[in-house]
């Protein structure tokens, strides 16, 4: 799923400092699962904004709504009435959400309340890690099903580099496992270590964002 986390409150307060009425719009998709932008977080952020502005003697009216999803136009539609009389929307979906809101309301200011951090998953309660970089041509089959593009700081195709020590990457002050050690261990378990003796040459980055904006088309589903 898409992982995101809240922006600091001060940053959001600064975004809306000139407004009197705003909508905080959440999303019931990925950001609900990673506890960053669901109904609960909409309520918390809205309260924090109201309290902070009240304390500053400049009250802010905040309406709350959580869309089914913010990455489908029809689920943005329910915001129509709420935003009619509003200065701005703070979307706490992943950064796809605010862009869908902006597309529907050409004259409305839209701000992101979250930082979208990665495509990944939870590894323990309250911890989410990156697993994919959406490079558009998956090569993890060569690496025991693990991704060196997302999970190696240098995106090595022929790791591990000299900075792998006791299973830990030199980047990240001891907090990041060396994915190449994990690949090595896994291929060893699978009896496929010989795969690591093959030189992996160039990756085709044209399917990644380097090739320009990506559009995925499924002709059979198009109307």
């Amino acid at each position: 799923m898409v992982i995101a986390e809240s922006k600091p409150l001060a940053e959001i307060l600064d975004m809306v400092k000139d407004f009197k009425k705003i909508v905080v719009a959440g999303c019931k998709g990925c950001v609900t699962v990673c506890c960053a932008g669901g109904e609960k977080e909409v309520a918390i952020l809205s309260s924090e904004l109201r309290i902070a502005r009240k304390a500053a003697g400049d009250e802010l009216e905040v309406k709350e709504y959580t869309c089914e999803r913010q990455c489908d136009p029809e689920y943005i539609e329910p915001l129509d009435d709420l935003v009619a009389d509003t200065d701005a929307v703070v979307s706490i979906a992943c950064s796809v959400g605010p862009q869908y809101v902006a597309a529907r309301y050409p004259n409305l200011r839209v701000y992101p309340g979250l930082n979208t951090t990665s495509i990944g998953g939870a590894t323990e309660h309250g911890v989410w890690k990156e697993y994919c970089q959406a490079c558009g041509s998956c090569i993890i089959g060569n690496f025991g099903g693990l991704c060196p593009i997302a999970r190696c700081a240098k995106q090595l195709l022929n790791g591990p580099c000299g900075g792998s020590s006791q299973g830990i990457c030199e980047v990240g002050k001891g907090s990041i496992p060396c994915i190449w050690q994990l690949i090595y261990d896994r291929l060893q378990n699978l009896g496929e270590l010989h795969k690591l003796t093959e030189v992996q040459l160039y990756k085709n980055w044209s399917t990644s964002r380097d090739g320009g904006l990506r559009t995925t088309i499924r002709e059979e589903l198009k109307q």
Partner: protein
Amino acid sequence: MTAEYSAGSKLEKILKSGQKAVTCECGPPRGADADHFRHKANYLLKCGDAVNVTDNQTAVVRFCSMAACRILMDMGIEPVMQMVTRDMNRIGLQSNILGAAALGIKNLLCLTGDHQSFGDHPQGKNVHDMDSLGLIHTVKTMRDEGKMASGTELQGRPRMFIGAAANPFADPPEFRVVRMGKKIAAGVQFIQTQCIYNMEKFRKFMEMAHDMGLTEKAFIMAGITPFKSVGMANYMKKFVPGMDVPDSYITRLRGVPKDKVAEEGIKIAVEQIHECLEMKGVAGIHLMAIEWEEMAPVVLEAAGLLPRPQVTAD
């Protein structure tokens, strides 16, 4: 190892003649002060068969490797141009390989490079379009097949003696030689190792390399960095990733009076050089006297590696 020269550099000729080669290292400054660089390089004038020029090492911005190589050539020093894949994509890398060859640079060391989080621009974007293996293959294909990574024909092939680094001390230990073997299979002709302090580990590494036939396929040069102080030894041990500094050296440096520590550091380096050169398959020494270039001649003299053979590059 074929007797014909792929680049005809001094380094290639000396290595292929069977003599133990010596390379030194000179890092460009963090500014445009060419005189400072010339001053440091001057100490290395008659020391190395070639001198490595680092490419923004530890991800700290310095003046570029190619310009520094040119300065060395003007001084009569043969350069080994280091090139990292961190800062340029395949367009920039290939362009620089061609430019370097056009300037007459004949030795190229292909590296991935330190991550930018260690340097002075940690907020910068890294490129990593390819890794060191990709770069090695690219240079070799350009040189031997006259083609770019895309398959486009070149007008004029870059004659380069191709090198790479190897770290015998990182993990997983049993894979380090295999990875060096991959580099050699991709086209590497000479290897310069990471600074060696754990002699036992290096001996095992060389034995494995020898058993795998790698010492027949490429010239392996042992990386030596003399300790300048106890602080430096401690720093290397604790903070430099992939470095293996046994406590015995630190104890030894601590055991001498403060004004004798540098001398002791040099003594250790000389012992290490002798020990490395006795190992089967060690083709030479890569002396990295980091910010201590003036000591390179002292170390090499004491190690009996001076004067260097008189050889002319093509």
